[in-house]
Protein backbone atom coordinates (compact mmCIF):
# COMPACT_ATOMS: atom_id res chain seq x y z
CA UNK A 1 0.00 0.00 0.00
CA UNK A 2 2.78 2.38 0.92
CA UNK A 3 4.36 1.73 -2.45
CA UNK A 4 1.07 2.37 -4.22
CA UNK A 5 0.54 5.68 -2.45
CA UNK A 6 3.99 6.77 -3.50
CA UNK A 7 3.41 5.64 -7.05
CA UNK A 8 0.11 7.52 -7.22
CA UNK A 9 1.85 10.61 -5.95
CA UNK A 10 4.49 10.44 -8.66
CA UNK A 11 1.85 9.85 -11.33
CA UNK A 12 -0.04 12.86 -10.03
CA UNK A 13 3.10 14.95 -10.32
CA UNK A 14 3.52 13.84 -13.91
CA UNK A 15 -0.09 14.76 -14.67
CA UNK A 16 0.37 18.18 -13.10
CA UNK A 17 3.30 18.86 -15.39
CA UNK A 18 1.48 17.51 -18.43
CA UNK A 19 -1.59 19.58 -17.81
CA UNK A 20 0.21 22.66 -16.57
CA UNK A 21 3.01 22.92 -19.07
CA UNK A 22 1.33 21.04 -21.88
CA UNK A 23 -2.38 21.71 -21.99
CA UNK A 24 -2.41 25.05 -20.19
CA UNK A 25 0.86 26.26 -21.69
CA UNK A 26 2.39 27.53 -18.49
CA UNK A 27 5.90 27.13 -19.83
CA UNK A 28 7.29 29.99 -17.81
CA UNK A 29 6.05 28.50 -14.56
CA UNK A 30 7.34 25.00 -15.24
CA UNK A 31 10.43 26.00 -17.20
CA UNK A 32 11.66 28.92 -15.16
CA UNK A 33 9.95 29.70 -11.87
CA UNK A 34 9.66 26.20 -10.45
CA UNK A 35 13.23 25.21 -11.39
CA UNK A 36 14.59 28.40 -9.83
CA UNK A 37 12.58 27.81 -6.66
CA UNK A 38 13.68 24.20 -6.58
CA UNK A 39 17.36 24.99 -6.86
CA UNK A 40 17.01 27.67 -4.22
CA UNK A 41 15.17 25.36 -1.83
CA UNK A 42 17.71 22.63 -2.45
CA UNK A 43 20.74 24.79 -1.79
CA UNK A 44 19.31 26.63 1.20
CA UNK A 45 17.71 23.51 2.62
CA UNK A 46 20.82 21.44 2.21
CA UNK A 47 23.07 24.06 3.76
CA UNK A 48 20.68 24.66 6.65
CA UNK A 49 20.49 20.95 7.45
CA UNK A 50 24.22 20.45 7.32
CA UNK A 51 24.86 23.58 9.38
CA UNK A 52 22.28 22.37 11.91
CA UNK A 53 24.06 19.07 12.24
CA UNK A 54 27.45 20.75 12.28
CA UNK A 55 26.37 23.06 15.07
CA UNK A 56 25.16 20.18 17.22
CA UNK A 57 28.01 19.27 19.52
CA UNK A 58 29.79 15.92 19.55
CA UNK A 59 30.03 15.37 23.29
CA UNK A 60 31.90 12.10 23.17
CA UNK A 61 34.41 10.46 20.90
CA UNK A 62 32.57 7.29 19.94
CA UNK A 63 33.99 5.74 16.78
CA UNK A 64 32.86 2.21 16.03
CA UNK A 65 36.16 0.38 15.89
CA UNK A 66 36.21 -2.31 13.24
CA UNK A 67 39.72 -3.63 13.59
CA UNK A 68 42.76 -3.73 15.80
CA UNK A 69 43.50 -0.36 17.40
CA UNK A 70 46.33 1.45 15.69
CA UNK A 71 48.07 2.63 18.79
CA UNK A 72 48.44 -0.15 21.21
CA UNK A 73 51.47 -2.22 22.07
CA UNK A 74 54.29 -2.23 19.49
CA UNK A 75 54.12 -5.99 19.06
CA UNK A 76 50.76 -5.75 17.37
CA UNK A 77 52.07 -3.28 14.85
CA UNK A 78 51.51 -5.54 11.87
CA UNK A 79 47.92 -6.12 12.93
CA UNK A 80 47.04 -2.45 13.10
CA UNK A 81 43.99 -1.74 11.07
CA UNK A 82 44.55 1.83 10.01
CA UNK A 83 41.47 1.93 7.85
CA UNK A 84 38.76 0.39 9.98
CA UNK A 85 40.06 1.68 13.27
CA UNK A 86 41.94 4.85 12.47
CA UNK A 87 44.01 6.40 15.21
CA UNK A 88 44.80 9.64 13.42
CA UNK A 89 42.98 12.27 11.40
CA UNK A 90 44.66 11.02 8.26
CA UNK A 91 43.36 7.56 8.98
CA UNK A 92 39.89 9.01 9.39
CA UNK A 93 40.17 10.61 5.96
CA UNK A 94 41.01 7.18 4.58
CA UNK A 95 38.14 5.56 6.38
CA UNK A 96 35.69 8.19 5.18
CA UNK A 97 36.99 7.88 1.63
CA UNK A 98 36.26 4.18 1.52
CA UNK A 99 32.96 4.73 3.30
CA UNK A 100 31.71 7.48 1.00
CA UNK A 101 33.10 6.32 -2.33
CA UNK A 102 33.07 2.56 -1.98
CA UNK A 103 30.40 1.93 0.69
CA UNK A 104 32.85 -0.11 2.71
CA UNK A 105 30.46 -0.88 5.55
CA UNK A 106 27.84 -2.20 3.16
CA UNK A 107 30.54 -4.29 1.54
CA UNK A 108 31.35 -5.79 4.90
CA UNK A 109 28.02 -7.53 4.60
CA UNK A 110 29.55 -9.88 2.11
CA UNK A 111 30.33 -12.96 4.00
CA UNK A 112 31.46 -16.27 2.76
CA UNK A 113 29.54 -18.88 4.64
CA UNK A 114 30.64 -22.35 5.55
CA UNK A 115 28.31 -25.05 4.43
CA UNK A 116 27.95 -28.70 4.48
CA UNK A 117 28.84 -29.65 0.99
CA UNK A 118 31.18 -28.09 -1.49
CA UNK A 119 29.43 -24.93 -2.51
CA UNK A 120 29.98 -21.58 -0.93
CA UNK A 121 27.14 -19.13 -0.66
CA UNK A 122 27.24 -15.41 -0.26
CA UNK A 123 24.66 -13.53 1.65
CA UNK A 124 22.36 -11.43 -0.47
CA UNK A 125 23.71 -8.27 1.03
CA UNK A 126 26.52 -8.30 -1.49
CA UNK A 127 23.91 -7.48 -4.10
CA UNK A 128 22.76 -4.52 -2.10
CA UNK A 129 26.32 -3.22 -2.10
CA UNK A 130 26.76 -3.71 -5.85
CA UNK A 131 23.47 -2.19 -6.87
CA UNK A 132 23.76 0.68 -4.43
CA UNK A 133 27.15 1.42 -5.88
CA UNK A 134 25.85 1.22 -9.46
CA UNK A 135 22.91 3.42 -8.64
CA UNK A 136 24.94 6.15 -7.00
CA UNK A 137 27.69 6.23 -9.60
CA UNK A 138 25.40 6.17 -12.61
CA UNK A 139 23.39 8.92 -10.99
CA UNK A 140 26.57 10.95 -10.71
CA UNK A 141 27.51 10.22 -14.33
CA UNK A 142 24.08 11.22 -15.57
CA UNK A 143 24.19 14.39 -13.53
CA UNK A 144 27.58 15.33 -14.98
CA UNK A 145 26.53 14.35 -18.48
CA UNK A 146 23.72 16.89 -18.24
CA UNK A 147 26.27 19.63 -17.74
CA UNK A 148 26.55 19.86 -21.50
CA UNK A 149 23.20 21.61 -21.45
CA UNK A 150 24.42 24.23 -19.03
CA UNK A 151 27.78 25.06 -20.59
CA UNK A 152 28.82 26.72 -23.83
CA UNK A 153 31.25 25.76 -25.17
CA UNK A 154 30.89 22.34 -23.57
CA UNK A 155 34.11 21.45 -21.73
CA UNK A 156 36.04 18.54 -23.18
CA UNK A 157 35.46 16.37 -20.14
CA UNK A 158 31.69 16.34 -20.52
CA UNK A 159 32.00 15.56 -24.21
CA UNK A 160 34.35 12.66 -23.48
CA UNK A 161 32.05 11.45 -20.80
CA UNK A 162 29.16 11.52 -23.22
CA UNK A 163 31.14 9.50 -25.75
CA UNK A 164 32.21 6.92 -23.25
CA UNK A 165 28.74 6.54 -21.90
CA UNK A 166 27.35 5.88 -25.37
CA UNK A 167 30.28 3.86 -26.68
CA UNK A 168 28.28 0.79 -27.53
CA UNK A 169 26.41 2.60 -30.28
CA UNK A 170 23.26 0.60 -29.89
CA UNK A 171 20.11 2.35 -31.13
CA UNK A 172 20.09 5.79 -32.58
CA UNK A 173 20.80 8.08 -30.91
CA UNK A 174 23.27 5.85 -29.12
CA UNK A 175 21.99 4.29 -25.95
CA UNK A 176 23.59 5.57 -22.80
CA UNK A 177 25.04 2.80 -20.69
CA UNK A 178 24.35 4.78 -17.54
CA UNK A 179 20.63 5.05 -18.32
CA UNK A 180 20.33 1.31 -18.60
CA UNK A 181 22.39 0.63 -15.50
CA UNK A 182 20.51 3.10 -13.36
CA UNK A 183 17.21 1.56 -14.36
CA UNK A 184 18.51 -1.89 -13.48
CA UNK A 185 19.81 -0.65 -10.14
CA UNK A 186 16.60 1.21 -9.37
CA UNK A 187 14.64 -1.87 -10.31
CA UNK A 188 16.68 -3.94 -7.92
CA UNK A 189 16.31 -1.45 -5.09
CA UNK A 190 12.56 -1.26 -5.67
CA UNK A 191 11.98 -5.00 -6.03
CA UNK A 192 14.06 -5.63 -2.95
CA UNK A 193 11.78 -3.36 -0.98
CA UNK A 194 8.71 -5.00 -2.38
CA UNK A 195 9.78 -8.63 -2.21
CA UNK A 196 12.11 -9.16 0.75
CA UNK A 197 9.75 -9.37 3.73
CA UNK A 198 12.10 -7.79 6.25
CA UNK A 199 12.82 -4.86 3.99
CA UNK A 200 9.17 -4.50 2.98
CA UNK A 201 8.27 -4.42 6.66
CA UNK A 202 10.61 -1.54 7.44
CA UNK A 203 9.87 0.46 4.29
CA UNK A 204 7.98 3.73 4.47
CA UNK A 205 6.31 5.78 1.75
CA UNK A 206 9.38 7.98 2.12
CA UNK A 207 11.42 5.05 0.81
CA UNK A 208 9.26 4.33 -2.22
CA UNK A 209 8.57 7.91 -3.21
CA UNK A 210 12.15 8.89 -4.13
CA UNK A 211 12.57 5.59 -5.98
CA UNK A 212 9.48 6.17 -8.12
CA UNK A 213 10.40 9.80 -8.56
CA UNK A 214 13.88 8.98 -9.86
CA UNK A 215 12.51 6.20 -12.03
CA UNK A 216 10.08 8.77 -13.44
CA UNK A 217 12.92 11.16 -14.15
CA UNK A 218 15.02 8.52 -15.88
CA UNK A 219 12.16 7.23 -17.98
CA UNK A 220 10.96 10.66 -19.03
CA UNK A 221 14.54 11.48 -19.98
CA UNK A 222 14.91 8.34 -22.01
CA UNK A 223 11.55 8.83 -23.75
CA UNK A 224 12.70 12.23 -24.94
CA UNK A 225 15.82 10.73 -26.43
CA UNK A 226 14.68 7.48 -27.93
CA UNK A 227 10.96 7.25 -28.52
CA UNK A 228 9.62 9.01 -31.57
CA UNK A 229 6.43 10.45 -30.16
CA UNK A 230 8.21 11.95 -27.17
CA UNK A 231 11.38 13.13 -28.86
CA UNK A 232 12.32 16.64 -28.03
CA UNK A 233 14.32 19.08 -30.03
CA UNK A 234 17.52 19.69 -28.11
CA UNK A 235 18.24 23.21 -29.34
CA UNK A 236 15.44 25.04 -27.50
CA UNK A 237 16.14 22.91 -24.43
CA UNK A 238 19.73 24.05 -24.39
CA UNK A 239 18.57 27.61 -24.92
CA UNK A 240 16.31 27.34 -21.91
CA UNK A 241 19.06 25.77 -19.80
CA UNK A 242 21.61 28.39 -20.79
CA UNK A 243 19.08 31.10 -20.08
CA UNK A 244 18.53 29.70 -16.62
CA UNK A 245 22.20 29.60 -15.69
CA UNK A 246 22.86 33.05 -17.15
CA UNK A 247 19.90 34.47 -15.23
CA UNK A 248 18.20 35.69 -18.41
CA UNK A 249 15.55 33.03 -18.68
CA UNK A 250 13.54 32.62 -21.84
CA UNK A 251 11.07 29.92 -22.78
CA UNK A 252 11.76 29.10 -26.43
CA UNK A 253 9.11 27.68 -28.69
CA UNK A 254 9.08 24.02 -29.59
CA UNK A 255 9.83 22.33 -26.28
CA UNK A 256 7.77 19.17 -25.86
CA UNK A 257 5.63 18.39 -22.82
CA UNK A 258 7.84 15.42 -21.94
CA UNK A 259 10.66 17.79 -21.24
CA UNK A 260 8.53 19.77 -18.82
CA UNK A 261 7.54 16.55 -17.06
CA UNK A 262 11.21 15.65 -16.80
CA UNK A 263 12.15 19.08 -15.51
CA UNK A 264 9.25 19.20 -13.09
CA UNK A 265 10.14 15.84 -11.56
CA UNK A 266 13.74 16.96 -11.16
CA UNK A 267 12.49 20.13 -9.48
CA UNK A 268 10.36 18.10 -7.11
CA UNK A 269 13.35 15.92 -6.31
CA UNK A 270 15.42 18.98 -5.51
CA UNK A 271 12.72 20.43 -3.30
CA UNK A 272 12.11 17.12 -1.57
CA UNK A 273 15.78 16.42 -1.03
CA UNK A 274 16.64 18.55 2.00
CA UNK A 275 13.59 17.36 3.93
CA UNK A 276 14.11 13.69 3.40
CA UNK A 277 16.34 10.72 4.01
CA UNK A 278 18.17 11.72 0.85
CA UNK A 279 20.11 14.00 3.15
CA UNK A 280 22.26 11.00 3.92
CA UNK A 281 24.40 12.57 1.22
CA UNK A 282 25.41 15.19 3.75
CA UNK A 283 24.94 13.14 6.90
CA UNK A 284 27.37 10.41 5.98
CA UNK A 285 30.21 12.85 6.51
CA UNK A 286 29.01 13.78 9.97
CA UNK A 287 28.48 10.43 11.60
CA UNK A 288 30.44 10.42 14.88
CA UNK A 289 30.90 6.66 14.78
CA UNK A 290 32.86 6.98 11.54
CA UNK A 291 34.55 10.35 11.33
CA UNK A 292 36.53 10.40 14.57
CA UNK A 293 39.89 8.82 15.31
CA UNK A 294 40.05 6.19 18.02
CA UNK A 295 42.41 8.08 20.30
CA UNK A 296 40.15 8.91 23.19
CA UNK A 297 42.52 7.64 25.86
CA UNK A 298 45.45 9.39 24.27
CA UNK A 299 44.02 12.83 23.68
CA UNK A 300 41.47 14.72 25.68
CA UNK A 301 38.17 15.21 23.90
CA UNK A 302 36.22 18.22 25.14
CA UNK A 303 32.47 18.04 25.68
CA UNK A 304 31.21 21.59 25.24
CA UNK A 305 28.26 21.08 27.57
CA UNK A 306 30.02 19.02 30.19
CA UNK A 307 28.56 20.09 33.51
CA UNK A 308 29.61 19.14 37.02
CA UNK A 309 27.74 16.24 38.56
CA UNK A 310 27.77 15.64 42.28
CA UNK A 311 28.98 12.23 43.23
CA UNK A 312 29.19 10.32 46.46
CA UNK A 313 32.54 11.46 47.79
CA UNK A 314 35.02 9.33 49.63
CA UNK A 315 34.47 11.44 52.71
CA UNK A 316 30.76 10.69 52.85
CA UNK A 317 31.55 7.05 52.25
CA UNK A 318 33.99 6.96 55.12
CA UNK A 319 31.66 8.89 57.36
CA UNK A 320 28.98 6.31 56.80
CA UNK A 321 31.24 3.31 57.22
CA UNK A 322 34.03 4.42 59.52
CA UNK A 323 33.27 2.03 62.36
CA UNK A 324 33.30 -1.11 60.23
CA UNK A 325 36.30 0.10 58.28
CA UNK A 326 38.34 0.61 61.42
CA UNK A 327 37.17 -2.69 62.81
CA UNK A 328 38.29 -4.61 59.73
CA UNK A 329 41.59 -2.83 59.57
CA UNK A 330 40.92 -0.63 56.57
CA UNK A 331 42.79 2.69 56.74
CA UNK A 332 40.64 5.76 57.40
CA UNK A 333 41.21 9.47 56.98
CA UNK A 334 39.76 10.46 60.33
CA UNK A 335 40.09 8.42 63.49
CA UNK A 336 36.99 6.82 64.93
CA UNK A 337 36.54 9.13 67.98
CA UNK A 338 35.62 12.10 65.82
CA UNK A 339 32.79 10.23 64.26
CA UNK A 340 30.25 11.02 66.97
CA UNK A 341 30.29 14.79 66.37
CA UNK A 342 30.64 14.45 62.64
CA UNK A 343 27.71 12.20 62.23
CA UNK A 344 25.29 14.30 64.22
CA UNK A 345 25.69 17.23 61.84
CA UNK A 346 25.67 15.16 58.71
CA UNK A 347 22.68 12.95 58.68
CA UNK A 348 21.83 12.99 55.02
CA UNK A 349 22.93 9.65 53.79
CA UNK A 350 23.59 10.90 50.32
CA UNK A 351 24.11 14.48 49.37
CA UNK A 352 23.01 13.64 45.90
CA UNK A 353 19.58 12.63 46.96
CA UNK A 354 18.20 16.10 46.35
CA UNK A 355 19.75 16.53 42.96
CA UNK A 356 17.24 16.21 40.21
CA UNK A 357 17.75 16.55 36.56
Amino acid at each position, binding site marked *: MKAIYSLILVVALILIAMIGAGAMGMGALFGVIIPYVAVLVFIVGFVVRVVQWGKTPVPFRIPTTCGQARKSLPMFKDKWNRLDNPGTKLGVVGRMFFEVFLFRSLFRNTKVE*LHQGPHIAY*SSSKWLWIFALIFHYTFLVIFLRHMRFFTEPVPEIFVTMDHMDSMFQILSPALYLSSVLILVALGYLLLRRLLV*PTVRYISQPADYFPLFLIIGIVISGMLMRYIGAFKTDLMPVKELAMGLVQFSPTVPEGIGTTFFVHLFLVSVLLIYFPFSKLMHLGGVFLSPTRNLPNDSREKHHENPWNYPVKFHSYQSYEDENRAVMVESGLPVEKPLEEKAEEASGDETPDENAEKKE
Partner: protein
Amino acid sequence: MVLDKSIKQNKVQILNLWLKKFTDTYPDESARFFKDNPGQFNNPVGYTFRVNMEKMFDELLQDNDHEKMRQYLDGIVRIRAVQGFDPATALGFMPLLRESIWEVCGREIEADKLHEQWLDLIYRMDRLTYLAFDIYMACREQLWKQRSEMFHHRTHKLLERAIAKNAAE
Protein backbone atom coordinates in the same frame (compact mmCIF):
# COMPACT_ATOMS: atom_id res chain seq x y z
CA MET B 1 7.69 -50.70 2.61
CA VAL B 2 5.98 -49.07 -0.30
CA LEU B 3 5.02 -45.94 1.54
CA ASP B 4 8.49 -45.37 2.95
CA LYS B 5 9.93 -45.65 -0.52
CA SER B 6 7.47 -43.19 -1.89
CA ILE B 7 8.22 -40.75 0.92
CA LYS B 8 11.93 -41.10 0.29
CA GLN B 9 11.41 -40.32 -3.35
CA ASN B 10 9.60 -37.15 -2.45
CA LYS B 11 12.11 -36.16 0.21
CA VAL B 12 13.00 -32.75 -1.15
CA GLN B 13 9.42 -31.74 -1.69
CA ILE B 14 8.29 -32.94 1.72
CA LEU B 15 11.21 -31.34 3.52
CA ASN B 16 10.68 -28.02 1.82
CA LEU B 17 7.00 -28.10 2.62
CA TRP B 18 7.72 -29.04 6.20
CA LEU B 19 10.26 -26.27 6.59
CA LYS B 20 7.91 -23.76 5.08
CA LYS B 21 5.04 -24.74 7.34
CA PHE B 22 7.40 -24.72 10.27
CA THR B 23 8.89 -21.28 9.66
CA ASP B 24 5.40 -19.96 8.99
CA THR B 25 4.83 -20.13 12.72
CA TYR B 26 6.98 -16.99 12.82
CA PRO B 27 6.04 -13.54 11.56
CA ASP B 28 6.44 -13.21 7.81
CA GLU B 29 9.64 -11.16 8.03
CA SER B 30 11.52 -13.58 10.23
CA ALA B 31 10.00 -16.65 8.57
CA ARG B 32 11.68 -15.72 5.33
CA PHE B 33 14.92 -14.95 7.10
CA PHE B 34 14.94 -18.27 8.93
CA LYS B 35 13.95 -20.20 5.84
CA ASP B 36 16.03 -18.58 3.11
CA ASN B 37 19.21 -17.34 4.72
CA PRO B 38 21.72 -20.15 4.28
CA GLY B 39 24.19 -18.93 6.89
CA GLN B 40 25.26 -21.41 9.49
CA PHE B 41 26.49 -18.65 11.76
CA ASN B 42 24.37 -15.67 10.91
CA ASN B 43 21.19 -17.70 10.89
CA PRO B 44 21.68 -20.37 13.53
CA VAL B 45 17.94 -20.88 14.02
CA GLY B 46 17.16 -21.61 10.38
CA TYR B 47 20.31 -23.62 9.95
CA THR B 48 19.67 -25.80 12.99
CA PHE B 49 16.10 -26.39 11.91
CA ARG B 50 17.05 -27.31 8.38
CA VAL B 51 19.89 -29.64 9.27
CA ASN B 52 18.08 -31.45 12.05
CA MET B 53 14.82 -31.77 10.15
CA GLU B 54 16.62 -33.48 7.33
CA LYS B 55 18.46 -35.79 9.68
CA MET B 56 15.22 -36.67 11.44
CA PHE B 57 13.52 -37.32 8.16
CA ASP B 58 16.25 -39.71 7.06
CA GLU B 59 16.43 -41.41 10.43
CA LEU B 60 12.68 -41.87 10.55
CA LEU B 61 12.80 -43.93 7.37
CA GLN B 62 15.91 -45.85 8.39
CA ASP B 63 16.73 -47.09 11.87
CA ASN B 64 14.61 -44.65 13.84
CA ASP B 65 17.34 -44.78 16.48
CA HIS B 66 16.12 -43.32 19.73
CA GLU B 67 19.38 -41.66 20.77
CA LYS B 68 20.03 -40.10 17.42
CA MET B 69 16.47 -38.86 17.23
CA ARG B 70 16.79 -37.35 20.67
CA GLN B 71 19.89 -35.49 19.55
CA TYR B 72 18.24 -34.11 16.40
CA LEU B 73 15.05 -33.18 18.17
CA ASP B 74 17.02 -31.51 20.92
CA GLY B 75 18.55 -29.07 18.46
CA ILE B 76 15.14 -27.86 17.34
CA VAL B 77 13.19 -28.09 20.58
CA ARG B 78 15.87 -26.28 22.56
CA ILE B 79 15.39 -23.26 20.33
CA ARG B 80 11.60 -23.46 20.30
CA ALA B 81 11.55 -23.66 24.09
CA VAL B 82 12.97 -20.16 24.54
CA GLN B 83 11.07 -18.38 21.80
CA GLY B 84 7.97 -17.63 23.78
CA PHE B 85 5.62 -20.17 22.15
CA ASP B 86 3.02 -22.05 24.08
CA PRO B 87 3.91 -25.74 24.26
CA ALA B 88 1.49 -26.82 21.52
CA THR B 89 2.93 -24.36 19.05
CA ALA B 90 6.49 -24.98 20.14
CA LEU B 91 6.12 -28.68 19.36
CA GLY B 92 3.72 -28.22 16.46
CA PHE B 93 6.47 -28.95 13.99
CA MET B 94 6.04 -32.67 14.56
CA PRO B 95 2.42 -32.78 13.38
CA LEU B 96 3.54 -30.51 10.56
CA LEU B 97 5.74 -33.32 9.27
CA ARG B 98 2.74 -35.62 9.19
CA GLU B 99 0.80 -32.91 7.44
CA SER B 100 3.53 -32.37 4.86
CA ILE B 101 3.81 -36.06 4.11
CA TRP B 102 0.08 -36.30 3.73
CA GLU B 103 -0.06 -33.39 1.37
CA VAL B 104 2.64 -34.85 -0.84
CA CYS B 105 1.84 -38.57 -0.62
CA GLY B 106 -1.76 -38.56 0.58
CA ARG B 107 -3.27 -39.20 -2.80
CA GLU B 108 -1.03 -42.18 -3.27
CA ILE B 109 -1.93 -43.49 0.17
CA GLU B 110 -5.63 -43.29 -0.66
CA ALA B 111 -5.22 -44.70 -4.13
CA ASP B 112 -2.94 -47.57 -3.24
CA LYS B 113 -4.73 -48.29 0.05
CA LEU B 114 -1.59 -47.87 2.08
CA HIS B 115 -3.51 -46.93 5.21
CA GLU B 116 -1.90 -49.56 7.35
CA GLN B 117 1.55 -48.37 6.49
CA TRP B 118 0.43 -44.80 6.98
CA LEU B 119 -0.88 -45.69 10.42
CA ASP B 120 2.40 -47.33 11.25
CA LEU B 121 4.25 -44.23 10.20
CA ILE B 122 1.96 -42.12 12.32
CA TYR B 123 2.80 -44.25 15.35
CA ARG B 124 6.48 -43.74 14.70
CA MET B 125 5.97 -40.03 14.39
CA ASP B 126 3.84 -39.95 17.50
CA ARG B 127 6.60 -41.51 19.51
CA LEU B 128 8.84 -38.71 18.29
CA THR B 129 6.30 -36.18 19.41
CA TYR B 130 6.34 -37.65 22.91
CA LEU B 131 10.11 -37.57 22.86
CA ALA B 132 9.99 -33.95 21.77
CA PHE B 133 7.71 -33.25 24.68
CA ASP B 134 10.20 -34.77 27.10
CA ILE B 135 12.95 -32.62 25.71
CA TYR B 136 10.75 -29.55 25.79
CA MET B 137 9.94 -30.10 29.45
CA ALA B 138 13.60 -30.67 30.27
CA CYS B 139 14.50 -27.40 28.56
CA ARG B 140 11.81 -25.49 30.39
CA GLU B 141 12.86 -26.98 33.67
CA GLN B 142 16.44 -26.11 32.99
CA LEU B 143 15.45 -22.54 32.25
CA TRP B 144 13.59 -22.30 35.51
CA LYS B 145 16.46 -23.85 37.34
CA GLN B 146 18.91 -21.43 35.82
CA ARG B 147 16.62 -18.62 36.68
CA SER B 148 16.22 -19.57 40.28
CA GLU B 149 19.88 -20.34 40.73
CA MET B 150 20.98 -17.12 39.23
CA PHE B 151 20.85 -15.07 42.37
CA HIS B 152 22.23 -17.94 44.33
CA HIS B 153 25.21 -18.20 41.98
CA ARG B 154 25.83 -14.55 42.18
CA THR B 155 26.08 -14.45 45.94
CA HIS B 156 26.50 -17.95 47.22
CA LYS B 157 30.21 -17.54 47.83
CA LEU B 158 29.34 -14.61 49.96
CA LEU B 159 26.71 -16.43 51.98
CA GLU B 160 28.87 -19.50 52.32
CA ARG B 161 31.68 -17.42 53.72
CA ALA B 162 29.48 -15.35 55.98
CA ILE B 163 28.02 -18.52 57.45
CA ALA B 164 31.47 -20.04 57.88
CA LYS B 165 32.66 -16.87 59.56
CA ASN B 166 29.72 -16.77 61.93
CA ALA B 167 30.29 -20.39 62.81
CA ALA B 168 33.95 -19.70 63.52
CA GLU B 169 33.12 -16.83 65.84
